[in-house]
C-alpha cells in the first residue's frame, strides 16, 4: 500500500475517429494522495468529466497510464474495471437515479452490487446514509417526487453507502443549495480524515475551494494550474 490513491501519467484521450477525431485530454499528469480532497476546476468543455470518468473506470484508458489503488487501468480487462468500480463511489453530473426505485431502494443498490447480504442490514444502512444527507423523512419517495437537490443527495448517499475507497463527484453541488452543498463537501472531507476516503470532485463553487486540500485547473484538456492548500493563495475568484 502506498499513500497514492490515484496516479495519472501521460494521459491522452480522443473522442471519435477519422475526420471527427478530437483530442479531449493532453498529457495529463496528476498524483492524488489517500484521504485527500481534490477539486477539479475549469471552463465547460475543458475535459473535467472526461478525466473523472477515465479515473472512475467508466471509460477505457487508451493512451497513457491511470493507476487506481495500485491497479493499472490502461489495457485492463472488463473484470478488473468491474472490481474497481465496486471500490469507488461515483456521483454523476445528472443524478442518474433509477426512476422506479424509492430513495431507499436506490441507495440499497449500492450495497446489492456486493452480493446478497442481509436485506434488513441493507435497509438499515441505506436509511442511515439518507439520514446523514438529511432525507430521513423521504425514504420511500420515488425520484419523481423529489426535488433536484434531494435527488442529488440520494445519489450522494448511494455513492457513500458501500464505504468506497475513492469518491468521484461531478458537480455534485450544482443542484444543491448553499447549506446542503457545504454539508456534502464537509462529509467528503470528514470521510477523508476518519476513514482515509479519497475524494476528487468537479465544482465551480468558489466557497468550496477553501475546504479542498488541492485545486487542479483544466483548460482545453490540459492542466494549467495545480494548487495545494498549504501554498499561499494569490488569486481571488470572481470579479474584483
Amino acid at each position: 500500500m502506498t499513500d497514492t490513491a490515484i496516479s495519472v501519467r501521460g494521459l491522452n484521450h480522443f473522442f471519435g475517429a477519422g475526420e471527427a477525431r478530437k483530442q479531449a485530454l493532453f498529457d495529463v499528469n496528476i498524483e492524488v494522495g489517500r484521504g485527500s480532497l481534490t477539486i477539479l476546476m475549469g471552463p465547460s468543455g475543458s475535459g473535467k468529466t472526461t478525466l473523472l470518468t477515465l479515473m472512475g473506470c467508466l471509460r477505457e484508458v487508451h493512451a497513457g497510464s491511470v493507476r487506481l489503488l495500485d491497479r493499472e487501468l490502461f489495457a485492463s480487462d472488463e473484470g478488473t474495471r468491474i472490481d474497481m468500480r465496486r471500490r469507488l463511489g461515483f456521483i454523476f453530473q445528472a443524478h442518474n437515479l433509477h426512476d422506479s426505485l424509492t430513495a431507499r431502494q436506490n441507495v440499497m443498490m449500492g450495497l446489492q452490487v456486493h452480493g446478497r447480504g442481509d436485506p434488513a442490514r441493507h435497509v438499515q444502512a441505506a436509511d442511515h446514509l439518507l439520514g446523514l444527507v438529511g432525507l430521513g423523512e423521504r425514504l420511500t419517495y420515488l425520484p419523481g417526487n423529489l426535488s433536484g437537490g434531494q435527488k442529488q443527495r440520494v445519489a450522494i448517499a448511494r455513492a457513500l453507502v458501500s464505504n468506497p475507497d475513492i469518491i468521484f463527484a461531478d458537480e455534485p453541488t450544482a443542484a444543491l443549495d448553499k447549506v446542503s452543498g457545504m454539508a456534502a463537501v464537509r462529509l467528503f472531507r470528514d470521510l477523508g480524515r476518519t476513514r482515509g476516503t479519497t475524494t476528487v470532485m468537479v465544482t465551480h463553487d468558489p466557497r468550496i475551494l477553501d475546504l479542498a486540500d488541492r485545486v487542479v485547473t483544466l483548460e482545453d484538456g490540459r492542466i494549467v494550474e495545480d494548487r495545494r492548500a498549504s501554498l499561499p493563495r494569490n488569486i481571488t475568484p470572481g470579479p474584483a
Partner: protein
Amino acid sequence: MTAFLARLLGRLPIGYLQLMHNPGRLVAALAGVAFANVLVFVQLGLAGSMAESVAIPYRLFQPDLLILSPLESETLSDASTLPRQRLFQALVHPDVTGGTPIYMARSTWLSGQDASSSIQFFGLAPDAGEFFHDALAGPLVSLSLSDTALVDTLTRFVDMRSFADATPDAPVPFEMQGRQLGAVGTVSIGGGFGGDGVFLVSDQTFFHLFPGRSSATPSHILLALAPGADPGRVADELTRLYPPDTVRIRPVTTAMEAEVRYQMTERPTGLIFAFGVAIGMVVGIVIAYQVLSADVADHLREYATFKALGFRQGFFVGVILEEAIILAAIGFWPGLVFSQLFYQALAYLTNIPIFMTPERAVAVFVGTILACALSGILAMRKLAAAQPADLF
C-alpha cells in the same frame, strides 16, 4: 409482491418494479406479447384444422382395421380404385376375419341460387356396421332401403335445419345427381378444406348415383383382424400375397397420419399453412424482440448507472429475464382468450374444425417465454459492449 420477489431473487426485483412503474408502457408491452400469441395461435389453429379435416373421414372407420388402397393414392378421397378381388384374396390370410369395400365419390349439391356445396359420398354396405364407428352401426342399417342417405348436419353453405328430424319413418326428400333421395337420418361430420360435408349411402344407392362406378372396383377395402393379431405383420404378409406394387396396406391410423403428413408437406394448401405457422412464429419473435429491446433502450441510462456501480452483465440479463418472464406469463392469457374467441368465430363462420388443444396452449406458452427470454438477452447485448460513460 416486491418483498416476495426480492426474497426469490436475492435482490430488489428491478424488472418487476420497472414494469409496474409505467403502467402505460406495461399495457403496450403486454398487448404486443398478446398479439404475437394470437398470431401464432391462429396460424397453428389453421394448420391444426387442416390436419384435423384430413383426419375426419378416417374416424368413420374402426381404428384397429387395415385399409387397402390403390398404390398410387396418397389420400383417401382422391384415390383411384382397386379390384374387389383384393378383398377375397385377403380373406385367405388366417388372421383376417372379414372385410368390406368402401366406395367414394364427390358430388355438387346446388343448394340455392348460386350456392353449392361439395359433398363427399361414402357408399357402404348397410350390414357392415362393425367396420365403422360405433355410432354409425345403427343408422347404417336404415340405409338398406334404396335411395336413402344419412346427411351431414354440418354441411357448409346449406341450411340443414329441415333435415334435423329426418327418420326412416319420415324421410326428408332432396335431389342430387339428378335423383330423388330421402334423408333417413343425420350424421355430424363436417367438411374441412377438401369439401363441405359428408353424406353416407348404401353401396346400391351409390351405384344409382354414380352409374359409372361398379361394385367390382371399390375405392378402398377395410379388413378386420383376429384379436391379438399384429396389424403391422399382417400388412407385411398381405403385401407379399399380392402382385408386387399393386396395393398399399396400412393400419387405419397409420394411413391417416401418412395423409396428414402428405397434405401438410407436399400439397400447396398444407404448405401454405405450414408457411403461415413459420411466418407467425417469426413475426411473434420479432414483436417480442421489439417489446424487450424498446424496454432496454428506455432504461439504458439507468442500466448504465448500475453498470457504473459495478454490476456485471449477469445482473442485467437477470433483470431482463425477470421482465421477459413476467411479460410472457401475463401477456399469454389475453392472447389465449382472444385466440379462443377467434377460433370460435372462425369455426362458426366456416365450419372448419378449428379449436384449442391443451398441447398447443402449453407449447405456445413455453414458446412465448423462450422467445421473450431470448429476445431480452439479445437486446441486453448492446449494454454489454457499451462504456457506462457513453450512456449517460
